[in-house]
């Protein structure tokens, strides 16, 4: 059963990076990586976070774990602000939150044996005796479907899918409640991707995990998510239950994204909506709605005012002046 209380919550979160200026000079410009995001993930659910490269989705994931410091706003885990924690409290909290990366090879130390990699978190957090840790590592390797002798081998001896299993075992080692999976299956072949998606779903059910699933592949996100958030240039433009987002998308960007996904059915070759132009740079995002320069429906108000993310019927939230969530009045009344 899903608990309705949020396990992870961010409020009006901002992350800006200075550009240029050097160490002591004044920054000449700012990269607006995350711009005023408020989002809650309920205990036990999978929230899919979708967007194109540079939209800020990975930054948002890292902010949620306080692997990055926000410029403004708050991150709360289980009701406590992560920003108010002392370094020592934060370290203790880290056992509850883990991350799985896209490139399992780049994120595994090539000189360590797999048992050492998987058990590193246990050793850092001084969990149990050495013997208990060894038993826990063996248990974890089995849990993620690796052969028992895997612990004695090195990462390069494994295929991409197996390396992702190692990354998952490492993340699970300290018994987290919340996992950020950042493009965790994007680099894998489709047959192996299916294995890892199944594994993540099984583990989530068995261990009651809460997942933030960051991906650019809309088909994969639809498969794994309970709710989905769509991000564009640092902001959430639409968020809601999976069926709502995929069957009844409101925001023109969401609709364009969905129409761009090639459907594996040769009888359904569709007329696509294409955008024209590239994703604008987050260095100087357009004023008003950041999507308006590429939007076919933009009104005058879209150029002036940033539309707030407003929640309508069925928990479906949209940030759009022209197509607000159902049950929310339009900008011009």
């Amino acid at each position, binding site marked *: 059963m899903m608990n309705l209380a949020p396990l992870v919550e961010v409020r009006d979160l901002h992350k800006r990076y200075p550009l240029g200026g050097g160490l002591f000079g004044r920054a000449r410009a700012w990269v607006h990586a995350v711009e005023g995001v408020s989002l809650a993930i309920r205990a036990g659910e999978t929230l899919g976070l979708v967007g194109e490269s540079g939209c800020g989705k990975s930054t948002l994931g890292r902010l949620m774990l306080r692997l990055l410091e926000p410029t403004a706003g708050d991150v709360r885990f289980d009701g406590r602000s992560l920003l108010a924690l002392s370094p020592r409290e934060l370290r203790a909290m880290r056992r509850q939150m883990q991350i799985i990366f896209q490139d399992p090879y780049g994120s595994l130390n090539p000189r360590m044996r797999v048992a050492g990699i998987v058990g590193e978190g246990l050793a850092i957090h001084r969990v149990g005796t050495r013997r208990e840790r060894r038993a826990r590592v063996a248990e974890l390797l089995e849990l993620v479907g690796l052969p028992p002798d895997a612990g004695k081998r090195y990462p390069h001896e494994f295929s991409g899918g197996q390396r992702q299993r190692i990354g998952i075992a490492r993340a699970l080692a300290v018994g987290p409640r919340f996992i950020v999976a950042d493009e965790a299956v994007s680099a894998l072949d489709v047959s192996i991707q299916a294995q890892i998606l*199944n594994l993540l779903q099984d583990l989530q059910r068995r261990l009651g995990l809460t997942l933030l699933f960051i991906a650019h592949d809309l088909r994969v996100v639809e498969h794994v998510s309970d709710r989905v958030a769509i991000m564009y240039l640092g902001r959430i433009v639409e968020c809601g239950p999976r069926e709502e987002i995929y069957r009844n998308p409101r925001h023109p960007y969401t609709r364009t994204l969905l129409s761009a996904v090639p459907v594996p059915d040769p009888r359904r070759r569709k007329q696509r909506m294409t955008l024209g132009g590239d994703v604008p740079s987050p260095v100087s995002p357009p004023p008003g709605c950041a999507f308006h320069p590429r939007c076919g429906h933009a009104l005058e108000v879209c150029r002036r005012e940033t539309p707030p993310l407003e929640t309508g019927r069925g928990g479906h939230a949209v940030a759009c002046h022209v197509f607000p969530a159902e049950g929310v009045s339009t900008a011009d009344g």
Partner: protein
Amino acid sequence: MTAGAPVEPAAARPLLEVGDLRTVFALEEGVVRAVDGVSLALERGRVLGLVGESGCGKTMTALSLMRLVPPPGRIVGGHVRLEGCDLLRLPEREMRAVRGAGLAMIFQEPMTSLNPVFTVGSQIAEAIRLHRRVGRRAAWSRAVELLDEVGIPEPERRARDYPHRLSGGMRQRVMIAIAISCEPRVLIADEPTTALDVTIQAEILDLLRTLRERHGMAVVLITHDLGVVAEQADEVAIMYAGRIVEHASVLDIFERPLHPYTQALLRSMPGLGGERRSRLEAIPGQVPDLLHLPSGCHFRDRCPKAIDRCAAEDPPLEEKARGHAAACIRV
């Protein structure tokens, strides 16, 4: 039934015809048969989707067609006939003329194929001047025309830009401009949109389709994305461990797949609008290691239908239904 690709009508000779192509890499650890007896045929204006997982030999097949196999790889057998002429028998000097005007290729990562210290206009102009006797100025204005044709806004200004000034999608458009600059008969596109965002991918695929219709090129579209194949291809060849295991029209592949690998591949893919929480049917095991392949059918150790005989013989690619070939003794 004859072995090989679906049989074409005898009247029309296919534009591109590949027979029993073999490319090997002799490594210290053993011999890798990256391309292991591939046969294909492609008509003018058609799109062949070449599909498979990493390491299955898709790219090596393409590089073999171009005769650009990197050492220690070597083409050791077969033929590649373009309009009847066997490219594998041409002297290298003549082959150089074929690359560009006969066959052209675009790659997944456009940045690595563009020279960072030259403007994109000069790189397109250079490609034109390699193949045609035209002056500098004419080549430059043709380059600007091509940038316009591939949908780059303000082509005169963009021609003077360096590659790093362009986004990934724009760079891929420049690569396409270079590839079509000499009006090739066959365009080989190797994962042309894999590195791009989905909205940009859609635009590049639309562009490839427009260009194909305008110039009547045939396209070999190499991809691992079955969605892209369903949308773009007329026919599909599925590769596994260096061999083509199934070849049919795009409708037959998606609606009547015959080979157990094709069937499993289709089932392992999450579909848009599909039922959630239904588990995906993953293919057990790992993507094959070409140095340690099982005897007989290379897929048998992951195949639910495998029997003892699958270990004993190499299944030939043979026509199982009209225009539908598969390499499986269980079909």
